């Protein structure tokens, strides 16, 4: 078991955002997590990447307890988090934003190769490489954020609504890329999505979160077929 969350409870002040959540995601698995606004998805990801300290519970990654470790330490353990809402640094250029992803590896050559890789996934970024990120369109920024995570060569990829603001074609493309990366690099992915259908379609595992609690966890396809899930989250 590669990522193993058990009995996790997280508070924002007095508000309990995550309560008693347990999830296991095996290595090489793409898990999609869906749930309505405010369900606690972002909070969960932020806890996994070390940005937020939980009140209770444990998180194991590759057999190691990681609660209490700082985000920068977790990056070195292969955890990469694309946070919600175009997490780019507007004042830096596209190239600098990308280099940031690989900065902890301190390897200029690898970093260059990774940039080429990102540019081949998102040609638009390649064209804008010298521009300041604040000139980018909404969707381009989202691409850049994902690109930065790819630069880090992660083993566990935490994606918070990567499809937000992207054109349908690109969404399709990104989902496909995520799927391919998972398989080819034996990644473990936790994908949070409002585009529930798209996410579940490519995922191995589906998780439904509501009001901070897990209400369903199953094979993705099984969730797609579940009439209750369909009605509540897939819109038909």
């Amino acid at each position, binding site marked *: 078991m590669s990522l193993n969350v058990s009995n996790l409870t997280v508070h924002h002040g007095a508000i309990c955002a995550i309560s008693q959540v347990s999830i296991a995601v095996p290595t090489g698995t793409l898990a999609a997590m869906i749930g*309505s*606004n*405010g369900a606690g998805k972002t909070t969960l990801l932020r806890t996994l990447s070390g940005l937020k300290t939980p009140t209770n519970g444990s998180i194991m990654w590759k057999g190691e307890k990681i609660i209490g470790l700082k985000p920068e330490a977790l990056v070195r353990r292969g955890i990469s988090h694309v946070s919600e809402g175009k997490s780019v640094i507007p004042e830096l250029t596209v190239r600098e934003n990308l280099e940031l992803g690989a900065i902890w590896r301190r390897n200029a050559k690898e970093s260059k190769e990774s940039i080429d890789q990102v540019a081949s996934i998102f040609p*638009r970024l390649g064209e804008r490489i010298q521009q300041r990120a604040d000139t980018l*369109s909404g*969707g381009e920024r989202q691409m850049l954020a994902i690109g930065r995570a790819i630069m880090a060569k992660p083993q566990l990829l935490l994606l918070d609504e990567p499809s937000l603001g992207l*054109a349908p*074609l690109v*969404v399709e493309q990104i989902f496909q890329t995520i799927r391919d990366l998972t398989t080819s690099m034996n990644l473990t992915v936790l994908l949070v999505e409002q585009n529930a259908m*798209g996410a579940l379609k490519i995922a191995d595992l589906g998780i439904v979160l509501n009001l901070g609690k897990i209400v369903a966890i199953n094979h993705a396809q099984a969730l797609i077929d579940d009439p209750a899930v369909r009605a509540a989250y897939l819109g038909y």
Partner: protein
Amino acid sequence: MSTNIAALRVEGVNISFGGLRALNDVYLEIGKNEVVGLIGPNGAGKTTLFNALCGLVTPDSGKFFLDGKEQDFPQTSNLVDLGIARTLQGVGLFGDLTVLENVMVGAQHLAHSGLISAALGRSGKDEKEIRTRSFSALERVYAGGLANRRADTLSYPDTKRVAIARALVSEPKILMLDEPAGGLGSQDIEWMNLLIRNLSASMSVLLVEHHMDVVMSVCSKLYVLNFGEVIASGSSETVRRDPAVMAAYLGTGA
């Protein structure tokens, strides 16, 4: 027939940033009480066109018609007087104001009393009027109950409602929405659909959106931008089947 005159029309809009051609000879027309969709790949220039219509970017060239009359592209601070309102691609609420205050800022232009009477505490009547209007704008998006919350404590879908209420309070003739459904769950998206359709009874709506469900269900007409050019326009159904559009934007899944 007067109804044939477009509420808003632009022609030959060109915008470039340095060497980058962001918009190239773009045209667009919105009829009265029509919901028009503006779609296209990321970075196609949709927001840029919005910005030009709002005075946030000055076009290099182009013509602008309001109610059939040609005029200069608007200045941002004049928009309200021209009857144009817009939401931002991010949400852009004033975080440390209450929800009601947020909307009241949108109704600023209704106030006529000056600084002196404000200093003397005599702007009460104006304030009352603004408050009433703002409240009813909030009711219109079913957010009346949120009035006294600080904006930065709202849930994401609620912020979207408030942003729309803030645009509505100036009673625009043309409402421009930049990705109103982005980041919303399926239930809120349905709600948004409904709202937009209702709004079109009293105003024209120009919509940028990547959610094709929303676009298809509310828009009667679509413009498709790609690399700053209009590559297709027409009724939603025709555009949707346009192979160029499918290749550039929709992909196979939609």
